[in-house]
């Protein structure tokens, strides 16, 4: 039977039969089969969020153990090896298993809803990116729980990471686990890039995208380019350790600094990748509670991209003490100072939005607005260390630990918690408890600042990083005790969030479609949304479709109730890159086992490499190849094939 090759999509409004048909086409199968094969971005997004929060809790526990050990001078709660594995695993967990996946999770859930689409461009790839994330996380933690956790910091410098000095499996778990995890990040990034450019609602031109989309898109383009650097570095390390190559060891003509360059060429853009999407959440959420559009949308969007571009050119500021020539130091110092400019655009935009709006205090608003202050504090300590001579005194002290926690907790964690309060009603149909939310906020805010503000002083007083104990020079003991106490208060605050989520899932106040009276498309569908998101494809005429009748001016209005029905199959609309003109009816894949099978095959492959069980690697590779073939086999459903001659 020949399928139609072109079609004029029916335009209409929603109806009972239409919805029934869409449910039949889009709902995930029930039970275990559905659980293992779903390609629904909302289910995948929620899995990402839950898994990332679990890793946040694990990483936080590691930190609390460290803070117990450091609460006073010369304590012996932990052995040096235990401490070194804890601080390394803490860093790895927070930066790789929490900070990026949590943003992937929210972005995965929200993007199609924000963009007016029915799913991401590559739903099966989406499922794959989650399964690999889960598998790689388990792989890495298998090392930690067997006493073979990474022990050379998250940055893993050679030669200490090499076999001569680190003969156990610790570094092999870390290296192979990171290569494995990198696959998830890469395919996830590819999915975001293609979705952003090709599957938006008609009329959602590039200057109408929510800033969260700008943020995640920028991060994804960057990740595509820089993740290979760190994957390569870890692969070369594994080769040096297991196959006697000489990439990094000086005895064979290798270069220890090659590791640092490859790592930081990845590492610096990465830290922007884990804050720019979160900044986007603030840029999208804050205006809702200020009852007005964001100030300076275009500048904020452009500064997102500009910050990342600058971010490619500053990596050497992690290496100022390595003996580089003066000209290089001057350049990278200048670039690191200059990057303050684009990153400050958002700060001024947010403050102006609050000042020129009429703020309504909710828990989400508290998190979104307090992060501005934390961002600035983190930013200025970064500015301080951008100056080479100052950095040569402050690097590797607790001053940098203070800086990195202000930027990571201030610009990732606080917005994420705000986002949880903001979008929880959409995801679940219930509000998080506001009263508990205030306790949550104040405990986290006070605890965080109590823990990390004194750390600036600890660093100025010279306490080095990555030490399992210390002598009590001039006040280090008192400062560390305050930090330790603050960290426990902060942890209690984080616990309140988890408690609030669990409680509200059962008994939170019911939320409708648009509980916050917000402007963007996700608030035009039920809470929680049906599997197909939009019964009819909306047409977008502005940045704030749901506010148009109040701030529209004389522009046209978006159409939310009437649009393309696209119910001949599991379909959504594909649109052109810049102006979002519809240009193709996109057939979407149904639930599939292929992503899970591929993830299982790859897991076997990597476990085989770790244990040098080549047979297992071979079997894993064969399973992976089979899964890929199954996945890419051209089907008529997706219109990938038709006979050449009728």
């Amino acid at each position, binding site marked *: 039977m020949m399928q139609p090759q072109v079609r004029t999509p029916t335009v209409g409004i929603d109806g009972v039969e239409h919805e029934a048909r869409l449910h039949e086409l889009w709902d995930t199968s029930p039970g275990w089969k559905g659980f293992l094969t779903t390609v629904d971005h909302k289910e995948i997004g929620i899995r990402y969020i839950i898994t990332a929060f679990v890793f946040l809790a694990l990483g936080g526990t590691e930190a609390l153990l460290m803070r117990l050990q450091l609460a006073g001078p010369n304590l012996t709660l932990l052995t040096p090896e235990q401490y070194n594995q804890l601080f390394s695993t803490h860093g790895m967990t927070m930066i790789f298993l929490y900070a990026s996946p949590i943003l992937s999770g929210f972005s995965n859930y929200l993007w199609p809803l924000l963009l007016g689409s029915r799913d991401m461009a590559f739903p099966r790839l989406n499922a794959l990116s989650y399964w690999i994330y889960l598998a790689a996380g388990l792989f890495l933690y298998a090392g930690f729980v067997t006493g073979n956790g990474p022990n050379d910091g998250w940055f893993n410098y050679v030669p200490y990471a090499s076999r001569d000095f680190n003969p156990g499996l610790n570094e092999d778990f870390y290296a192979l686990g990171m290569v494995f995890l990198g696959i998830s990040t890469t395919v996830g990034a590819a999915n975001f890039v293609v979705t952003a450019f090709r599957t938006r609602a008609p009329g959602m031109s590039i200057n109408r995208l929510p800033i969260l989309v700008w943020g995640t898109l920028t991060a994804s383009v960057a990740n595509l380019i820089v993740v290979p650097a760190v994957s390569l570095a870890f692969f070369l390390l594994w080769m040096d350790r297991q196959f006697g190559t000489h990439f990094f060891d000086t005895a064979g003509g290798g270069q220890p600094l090659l590791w640092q360059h490859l790592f930081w060429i990845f590492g610096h853009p990465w830290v922007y990748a884990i804050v720019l999407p979160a900044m986007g959440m603030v840029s999208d959420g804050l205006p809702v509670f200020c*009852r007005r559009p964001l100030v300076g949308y275009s500048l904020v969007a452009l500064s997102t991209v500009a910050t990342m571009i600058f971010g490619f050119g500053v990596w050497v500021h992690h290496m100022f003490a390595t003996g580089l020539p003066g000209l290089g130091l001057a350049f990278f110092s200048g670039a690191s100072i200059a990057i303050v400019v684009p990153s400050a655009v958002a700060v001024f935009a947010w403050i102006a939005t609050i000042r020129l*709006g009429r703020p309504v205090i909710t828990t989400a608003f508290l998190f979104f607005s307090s992060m501005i202050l934390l961002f600035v504090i983190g930013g200025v300590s970064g500015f301080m260390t951008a100056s080479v001579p100052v950095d040569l005194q402050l690097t590797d002290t607790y001053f940098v630990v203070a800086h990195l926690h202000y930027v990571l907790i201030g610009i990732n964690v606080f917005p994420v918690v705000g986002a949880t309060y903001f979008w929880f009603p959409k995801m679940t149909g219930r509000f998080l408890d506001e009263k508990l939310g205030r306790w949550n906020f104040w405990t986290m805010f006070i605890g965080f600042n109590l823990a990390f503000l004194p750390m600036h002083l600890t660093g100025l007083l010279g306490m080095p990083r990555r030490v399992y104990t210390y002598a009590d020079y001039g006040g280090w003991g008192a400062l560390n005790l305050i930090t330790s106490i603050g960290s426990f208060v902060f942890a209690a605050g984080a616990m309140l969030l988890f408690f609030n989520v669990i409680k509200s899932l059962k008994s939170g106040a019911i939320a409708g479609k648009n509980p916050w009276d917000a402007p963007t498309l996700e608030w035009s569908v039920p809470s929680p949304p049906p599997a197909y998101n939009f019964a009819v494809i909306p047409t977008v005429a502005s940045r704030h479709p749901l506010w148009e009748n109040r701030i529209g001016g004389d522009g046209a209005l978006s159409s939310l109730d009437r649009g393309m029905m696209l119910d001949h199959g599991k379909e959504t609309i594909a649109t052109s890159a810049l102006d979002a003109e519809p240009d193709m009816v996109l057939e979407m894949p149904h639930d599939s086992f292929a992503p899970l099978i591929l993830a299982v095959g790859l897991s076997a492959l990597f476990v085989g490499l770790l244990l040098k069980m080549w047979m297992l690697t071979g079997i894993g590779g064969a399973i992976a190849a089979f899964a890929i073939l199954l996945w890419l086999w051209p089907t008529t459903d997706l219109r990938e094939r038709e006979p050449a001659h009728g």
Partner: protein
Amino acid sequence: MSDWPLSYLTSAGPRAREVVPLTWYVLLVSIAVSLVISALLWRALRRTRPEDQSIEIRDVPIERGTSGVRWISIGLMVSAVPLAVAFVWTLLTLAAIAGPPAHPGLVLDVTGRQWWWQVEYAASQPSDVFATANEIHIPVGVQVLVRLHGADVIHSFWVPQLSGKTDAIPGQTNTSWIQADKPGRYLGQCTEFCGAQHAHMQFEVVAEPREDFDRWESLQRQPAAVPSTAEASRGLSLVEYRCGLCHRVRGTAAGAVSAPDLTHLMTRRTLAAGTLLNNPGNLAGWVQNPQNIKPGNLMPNQFLSAQQLSDALAYLETLK
């Protein structure tokens, strides 16, 4: 030693002192910016009415409002000024602290090792070359060139009151320089994570007047004194036989170089890279059970009998 021995804000030499005014500048700019932003945020938030605790969000109408872009442009323009000043000041300071010195008064070869500092004093006469560990003496007011070597993993040489950090990286020689303008003891610390005992890898720079330094230097050049008591002689044999597997005592058969040179051990204030004060009790404890004090370090527990220990100490205490 100062109350905050690892704080460079109380600097004692030009290379550290040059950085202090710049530090205060960027610190004060940072604090000022944080306060200004806090004030702006506070003022912006004050616009909420007190009863907003339970306001229905829909009761506050949406308004397009003014463009507000001026906030961003003014904010950026105001920010650019201290940034530019910081950059120029940075370049000037970089030039001031740059090295290596053209005519250093002293040249040292410092090798970072897990978890101690090997210090070699260069000299034109090979017989005048000597090595010590963890305690560096320099004459006051003299520019000292420090050549940094890495023997195993990356370490970082940092004595904050005299200079910023420079890494000691295997496969290359980095250079740093220090100069102390007043006599004193200045604490140093390894500041690149290097393994289990990174936390206990300190060193001291002792700046002393020229005559005192010269006296110290000629003493260090001497080989170890011959022991005069029977106990110390037994100790010497034990040290040569056991400790000599890793340590060196010039003038004896203990000649290995993988552990600190002990020839003038008693002239040093601390043991185990700043971990313990150098006194008889600590020395005994360290020799017998180093793993207790610095778990994971490369010196194994010795399991000496009481007699052996007392002999060894009797000899070691002659190494002045």
